[in-house]
């Protein structure tokens, strides 16, 4: 029996996990990071757009601060987020980005002088001041008041991930790749590490630790069409779920993006439409004006996604071996514009589809279809990052439901969340590890190990008839078709039933090779049932939630229903025998909010069923603000009075800005 002991165990080596590991190692803890793949290959590398932080350096972001970032985040979440967490986040984000700059992320910098930019399809001249020259630059991203998204050209996630990963190596964090956690070690509602499979030798090992932090990313691959990497299967969240103790939050909150390219699912930036690109259907007809006469292609992300799916449903999609799609036509922008401003799009299209989008006519049209993009749901944690039900189990990053994003996350808030959570939760996690001991017997550990060994051996020896690849494919189809952008009671109910059936079938597999090491089919065999459980959490949560909020869109319940649904969905898996999760709810308390529910400022008006507390709290907030302003208090003091929040380290310090 191979048992490794450490102080802090981090499962997942994306931005979130690595940043948390640095926090733990810096506190003198012996820290191990496990990852399915070399950590620098984690999905975080794929983020192109950028990271939000209210630095307020450049012209278009002047006057930005935590308050504005906070408001954007809360509205974006459709009031589903935890506002305290949102405050912790917006306050730490500028520190995170400055720390990353010191760690070597080559952020694009402000260049003094005039330059032209395309804003709302119009050429505009922006002039940067001399005293800002060389500070960190920011760009525009959907849903924000100011240009707040900091970036390194088109490879923000990549440069961030490499800097943080190298920093972890510098601090001698013990980073181990091709190691997959397949089960958590826990006893009496306390987590003590994980059973881990070496993906090369196939050997099982126990990693026993004082605290365990899951940072395994999202669950996009529950869907067939997704922008996510192939390893985003949500296994980390499933491990928590399978404890029967820990809960997952808001699993039905899944975000879709309108224009990934078909079939690969690689994202084509919003800039295509921003600059004037058009969407066309099977007849070459530009259909968006039919649905949205005013905003046309430039309606918000979720609206465009829904209209596209609607049009495909109306039989206007272009059939292909990879399913129906629509066309994105940017050739009308002219070759010069494309080669100058949309080079990445052109490269992706040429490399992956052999299409040059600058060619006029049908030949240059790029096949696109809305696809899954981000998982707001995940392991439900407290503001400190610890599971609400299991001590010693922490989570951060996309795998967690910290609840910063509620039912919709803003572009650029996600990589930002990973590092910020890595800093905040990483420190709380480290404190936990420093202050607690392992109190579990070796007998228990070896029992857990044997259980898993027996399970895996059972899988390769299985005499069933089912093919795991087929089951997985079917699951992904169900999720696309019935738990996708459009949701309704009937389809969701069907989905739940069919997924349950698949879960049953997944217990009767037949695997071709009986090898215990390096057997890709075996890996599928133990992952797919875990994925099915998550899929059931998503589908059932969506079925129960009879309202539309953020990315969760019910055709049979079109309004946001604050009266009944201002709450988080919590799912748990009580017993191995169960075929569906148990759902409970956690109220979101308006009375403690700094920003009570209101109109989001975009989308249709009058689509809310209001909660009675909202106006009461709003009045309270307004009064207090007015009083304090009259008393000469500044925005920090007012904020503190409205909704105080805590941060570890010295993260609570005020953020300095050049404009101060």
């Amino acid at each position: 029996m191979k048992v490794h002991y450490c102080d802090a165990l981090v499962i997942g080596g994306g931005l979130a996990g690595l940043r948390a590991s640095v926090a733990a190692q810096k506190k003198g803890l012996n820290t191990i990071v496990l990852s399915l793949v070399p950590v620098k290959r984690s999905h975080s590398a794929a983020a192109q757009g950028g990271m939000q932080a209210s630095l307020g350096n450049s012209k278009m972001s002047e006057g930005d601060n935590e308050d504005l970032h906070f408001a954007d985040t809360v509205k974006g979440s459709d009031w589903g987020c935890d506002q305290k967490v949102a405050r912790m986040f917006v306050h730490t984000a500028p520190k995170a980005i400055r720390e990353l700059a010191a760690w070597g992320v080559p952020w694009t910098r402000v260049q003094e002088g005039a330059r032209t930019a395309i804003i709302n399809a119009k050429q505009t001249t922006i002039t940067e001041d001399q005293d800002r020259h060389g500070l960190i630059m920011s760009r525009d991203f959907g849903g924000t008041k100011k240009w707040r998204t900091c970036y390194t050209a088109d490879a923000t996630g990549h440069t961030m991930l490499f800097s943080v990963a190298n920093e972890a190596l510098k601090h001698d964090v013990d980073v181990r790749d091709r190691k997959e956690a397949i089960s958590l070690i826990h006893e009496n509602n306390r987590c003590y590490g994980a059973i881990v499979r070496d993906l090369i030798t196939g050997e099982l090992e126990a990693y026993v630790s004082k605290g365990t932090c899951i940072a395994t990313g999202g669950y996009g691959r529950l869907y067939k069409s997704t922008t996510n990497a192939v390893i985003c299967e949500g296994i980390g969240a499933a491990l928590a779920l399978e404890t029967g103790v820990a809960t997952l939050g808001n699993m039905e909150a899944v975000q879709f993006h309108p224009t990934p390219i078909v079939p690969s699912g690689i994202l084509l930036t919003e800039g295509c439409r921003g600059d004037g690109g058009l969407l066309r259907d099977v007849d070459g007809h530009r259909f968006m004006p039919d649905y949205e006469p005013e905003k046309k292609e430039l309606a918000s992300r979720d609206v465009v996604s829904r209209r596209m799916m609607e049009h495909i449903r109306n039989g206007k999609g272009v059939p292909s071996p990879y399913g129906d799609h629509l066309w994105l036509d940017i050739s009308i922008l002219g070759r010069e514009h494309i080669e100058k401003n949309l080079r990445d799009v052109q490269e992706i299209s040429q490399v992956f589809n052999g299409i040059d989008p600058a060619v006029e006519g049908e030949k240059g049209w790029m096949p696109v279809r809305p696809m899954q993009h981000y998982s707001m749901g995940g392991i439900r944690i407290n503001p400190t990052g610890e599971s609400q039900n299991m001590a010693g189990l922490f989570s951060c990053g996309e795998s967690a439901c910290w609840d910063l994003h509620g039912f919709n996350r803003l572009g650029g808030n996600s990589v930002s969340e990973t590092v910020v959570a890595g800093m905040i939760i990483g420190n709380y996690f480290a404190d936990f590890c420093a202050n607690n001991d392992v109190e579990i017997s070796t007998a228990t550990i070896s029992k857990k190990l044997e259980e898993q060994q027996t399970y895996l051996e059972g899988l390769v020896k299985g005499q069933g008839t089912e093919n795991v690849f087929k089951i997985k494919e079917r699951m992904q189809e169900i999720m696309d078709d019935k738990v996708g952008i459009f949701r309704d009671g009937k389809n969701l109910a069907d989905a739940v039933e069919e997924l349950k059936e698949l879960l049953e079938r997944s217990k009767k597999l037949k695997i071709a090779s009986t090898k215990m090491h390096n057997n890709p089919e075996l890996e599928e065999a133990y992952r797919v049932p875990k994925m099915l459980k998550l899929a059931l959490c998503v589908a059932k949560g969506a079925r129960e939630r009879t309202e539309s909020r953020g990315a969760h869109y019910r055709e049979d319940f079109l309004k946001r229903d604050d009266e009944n649904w201002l709450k988080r969905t919590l799912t748990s898996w009580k017993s191995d025998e169960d075929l569906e999760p148990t759902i409970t709810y956690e109220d979101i308390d308006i009375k403690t909010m700094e920003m009570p529910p209101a109109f989001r400022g975009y989308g249709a008006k009058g689509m809310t069923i209001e909660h009675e507390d909202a106006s009461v709290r709003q009045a309270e907030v307004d009064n207090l603000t007015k009083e304090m302003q009259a008393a000469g208090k500044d925005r920090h003091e007012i904020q503190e009075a409205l909704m105080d929040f805590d941060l570890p380290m010295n993260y609570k310090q005020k953020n300095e800005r050049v404009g101060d």
Partner: protein
Amino acid sequence: MSQANREITISILKYDPQDKTVEPRFVDYKLEETPGMTLFIALNSIRSNQDADLSYDFVCRAGICGSCGMVVNGKPVLACRTLTSTYPEGVITLLPMPAFELIKDLSVNTGKWMDEMSKRVESWIVTNEETDISKVEAKVEPKVAEEVFELDRCIECGLCLASCATKLMRPNFVGAVGLNRVARFQMDPHDQRTDEDFYELIGDDDGVFGCMSLLGCEDHCPKNLPLQNKIAYMRRKMVSVK
């Protein structure tokens, strides 16, 4: 859209070093080519429908994570960015990348090598300055930031090593990826190391002086990094160290 799809043959060198009972062998798989088919799609189709025991590595399938380097008809490439239609003969031979420890079939241990390289060249910012992250960040000339970014784009895919005969002959050679990394930090204003410090890391025949300017790296780097130029730059810097 409606043209008949051709059949292609993908010939893969299969070998499991942990299973000594089976010798390395080529296995041919035939499949129908679909429009826009990449090797990522093709290999997944083979795994789901023909050979569930075929090992390979993909993560992002978008040419950004550096997982999927393999040797396709003699050339190291990122498989996910490679369209099957680029091979008009319809026969595609896949080998695992040399230069790395073979895990199985097309899967090689690039991560292990890259981590060791990162530690060896101390691929991180070294400075004695403490940064107060509550204060406004240090200014950086936009041009300099851009130049550093240009080099920071390396995705550690290892194609430069698989196409460097020097590295293949001499396993300890740090390769273009390592030299590029040093150049990156040498140019970064946050890093306080001097050329003498960098000499300690790469001033030998396993480092910059081991490079024989074969330029396979430059010609196969999927990110088009200016490797020739930057290795030359480091060489000039290193010979001028007193």
